[in-house]
């Protein structure tokens, strides 16, 4: 069971309080009718499903109820950070480099 830091509650809570929301930063198109079928399928279904640092959505469903985003390493399952919805996507490559350097030390 993961331990997740909720950026709204300011505490770490067990995973069972949360619901996963899939890959983060996939904004719904402002006007879906402008997308062709291929583009719409990309939005609907295609995911990077990254092995490594992954930006993903969580909802503190049995807590404060808020959706927020997290960067997590999908190999170690460790969270690098969590941040409020609407905040910009962190630079995953930079985070990956930083975490490698930390490991090297």
């Amino acid at each position: 069971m993961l331990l997740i830091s909720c950026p709204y509650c300011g505490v770490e809570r067990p995973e069972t309080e949360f619901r996963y929301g899939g890959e983060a930063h996939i904004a719904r198109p402002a006007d879906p009718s402008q997308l062709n079928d291929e583009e719409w399928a990309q939005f609907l279904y295609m995911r990077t499903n990254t092995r490594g640092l992954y930006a993903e959505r969580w909802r503190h469903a049995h807590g404060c109820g808020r959706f927020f985003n997290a960067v997590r390493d999908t190999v170690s399952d460790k969270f690098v950070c969590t941040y409020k919805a609407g905040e910009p996507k962190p630079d995953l490559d930079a985070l990956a480099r930083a975490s490698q350097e930390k490991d090297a030390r």
Partner: protein
Amino acid sequence: MTRYSFLEVAKNAFSAHKNWGRQWRSPEPKPAYDVIIIGAGGHGLATAYYLAKVHGITNVAVLDKGWLGGGNTGRNTTIVRSNYLWEESARLYQHALDLWDGLSQELNYNVMYSQRGVMMLAHTVHDIQVFKRHIHANRLAGVTNEWLSAEEAKEFCPPLNIDKNIRYPVMGAALQRVGGTARHDAVAWGYARGASAMGVDIIQNCAVTGIRRAPTGEVTGVETTRGFIGAKKIGCVAAGNTSVVMAMAGLKLPLESNPLQALVSEPVKPAFPCVVMSNTIHAYISQSDKGELVIGAGTDQFVSYSQAGGLHITTHTLDAICELFPMFRRMRMLRNWGGIVDNTPDRSPIIGLTPVPGLYLNCGWGTGGFKATPGSGHVFAHTIATGAPHPVNAPFSLDRFRTGRLIDEAAAAAVAH
């Protein structure tokens, strides 16, 4: 290839079993092959086997980043059945079931396919409706599947608790008698041995790090931890790691990789005669030839490549097992492990062509790929060999996510009133 038989074993007993040969070769990779299969799991090895056997294409390499059969092939609960709802699915899994029957003889390797019967429990009125729909659809499709009352279900599986007062009483069951289990490692090894004997190179500890394409777009080979290997065609059968491999070719897929757990109990004398599945309360159980209760648990909710799931998932499954089989409450978990399953939005696999010429895809088997192993390999070999899908896998194209022609096996379980 030495033909295996009891006589052969007896003969070798006289030489203290010192004269057995290798079951498969472990060659160095050649500079190039006609076909490279990425992933030496059951599906990949079966693909190579049928490429050689059915299509005469033997200049084939199967590459794996680890040891053959080390992914989901060696980590699943070995359930074999074909009673899926949609005609497309039933045809695909029945194709596999037809190949399971006789596979030991075909491979000359005992894969221990045991038609113990797979029984799916109905706990609600809605379950009954769904299962009966399966049964009627299956009958029309020529797939066996029958309805049992709760009492008949208990007769078929005596440990089953059909007390009307439990939280979700058993209201009946759908039984596929020809369903059952097989020995997962043996399936990988049997196909490996058969493929290797026909000239297929199985190259283990060889991770693919890139997919090379010509300026015109078609594939030319793969970069690996053991150097570049050329190929005219590449089939990706990388299960949970498919997204990672296909990203090397610039493709994003409708996949999420999730941890899926399974566990076994300590071995006991025969206690459980069949396979029982309960989707409603999440319990999947059978007993292995060795005597272990083999139990499938659920997937974790998040994307992960860790091959390790959460404790609460295991706990949830064992709650359910203990409710359905209260005498097993005193049994003990011996081993618990995880695999990485690649799930599609409609919980049906993708088997077919990709937008990249020469690159073929077989993935998205989610939690149920083992049962399809022979059929999957067979139709994928056809797809690679001919450059066009076999009629059985044609509906399982990647393009269905654009057109909306999904084959949704999961949605039918939705409950509402």
